């Protein structure tokens, strides 16, 4: 994509909001190397969002700042307490002789140094693990909800009919009119370049195609996609990264009729 296409794709806004996929994030960061002027765009988008959020700002109640610093102190105090714990056995041998006492002191100092360093590392790892654990918990909840939808007996399994140039396309649509959900099961899909995406379209008689979900094809075996009321046929095309407003018909890879 050239500079203008990137600006019009809406990906810069998603990048600033932290809502783009990993592939899109990599693409934007590579584009920033190629087009340094994008940094100004990203700064201005962030600045605009900061001003917009400031319109809705909510002043925290009085004790919140104190609580924050209490938690910070608590974490620091715990780390210091752990770090000052003397190694077992050192106190027993302290009274015997001056050289032994000095040796003990040196051992304590070394013990404190390594323990402190180790505690800091462990604390940092613990925070990382907690963050990872939170995310996994969320992911589990999402996967569970998805599984429930996939097992819904109201699902109709419909095969996309591949078009001439894309005969190897093997996609199924799990269509559920009652719950208004759609999933695409990927069994075979054409290769696309990093600057392209797949896009789902809703086709209704007498209307222009309606752009729906944009996906990369590597999100997993089942991809949740939009349900559009009154759709007669769903179609999938290959579009520039981020999707298009109108379909590229020569890149139509398959269609499936639902009514």
């Amino acid at each position, binding site marked *: 994509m050239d500079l203008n296409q990137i600006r*019009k794709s*809406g990906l810069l*806004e998603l990048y*600033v*909001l*932290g*809502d783009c996929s990993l592939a899109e994030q990599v693409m934007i*960061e590579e584009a920033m190397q190629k087009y340094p002027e994008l*940094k100004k765009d*990203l*700064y*201005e*988008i*962030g*600045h*605009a*969002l*900061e*001003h*917009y*959020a*400031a*319109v*809705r*700002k*909510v*002043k*925290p*109640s009085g004790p*919140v*700042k104190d*609580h*924050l*610093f209490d*938690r*910070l102190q608590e*974490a620091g105090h715990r780390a210091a307490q752990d770090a000052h714990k003397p190694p077992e056995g050192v106190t027993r041998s302290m009274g015997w002789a001056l050289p032994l006492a000095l040796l003990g002191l040196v051992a304590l100092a070394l013990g404190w140094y390594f323990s402190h360093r180790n505690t800091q590392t462990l604390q*940092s790892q613990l*925070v990382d693990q907690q*963050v990872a654990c*939170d*995310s996994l*918990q*969320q992911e589990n*909840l*999402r996967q569970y*909800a998805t599984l429930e939808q996939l097992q819904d007996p109201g699902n109709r399994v419909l095969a996309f009919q591949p078009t001439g140039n894309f005969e190897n396309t093997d996609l199924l649509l799990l269509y559920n009119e009652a719950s*208004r959900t759609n999933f695409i099961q990927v069994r075979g899909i054409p290769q696309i370049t990093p600057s392209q995406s797949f896009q789902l379209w*809703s086709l209704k008689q007498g209307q222009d195609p*309606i*752009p*729906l*979900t*944009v996906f990369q094809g590597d999100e997993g075996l089942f991809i*949740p996609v*939009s349900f559009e009321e009154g759709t007669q046929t769903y179609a999938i095309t290959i579009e520039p990264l*981020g*999707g*298009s*407003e109108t379909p590229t018909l020569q890149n139509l890879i398959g269609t499936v009729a639902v009514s």
Partner: protein
Amino acid sequence: MTEIVEMIRQRNEKGLSLLYDRYAPTLLGIIVGVVKRRDIGEEVLQQSLLKAWNHIDKFNEEKASFFTWLMTIARRTAIDQARLVGNRIVAGPMEVPETADDSAAKGASDGMDADRLLRVLDHDQRAVLDMIYLQGHTHRDTAEILQIPLGTVKSRLRLGIAALRKELQSEKKLFLGFLMTLIMVLLIRSLWI
């Protein structure tokens, strides 16, 4: 801004205090928009700021501004919290008034008039921006709730942010123009005397 980041990198708690004073109300506004409750929002705010303190080494000014980085942490923590509590983000009113801070009613920030900033967005753009940015909905959810195609959600979001950018640029030009005029007047006056 750079000073705050440097202080936090050096584990100077004053940096966190300055960060709190400057950004906490804006971040709490975003968080409460997602979790809908002020008490939960204040807890999420503390978690977010502690994450920023603990992971400051991951902030890269080449990739994003400091506010953007903080906002991403706060939104993600709030969205995770909202899903933990209710298993999904819900559309609905906030428990606190939309503009709970008196000063917000008078000015968004840096003297920008809040009403003027909101007037540049049409109703549709504002609805999409609020749902995605301030309430943490996905684009897909937003499309379903507003019953519009996903492509329209994306274009309204982009055009809304573009309108805000344009307004802020014209505000900046106006301020610089005023400043230049003032300097010229003072210069002429001093030459005259």
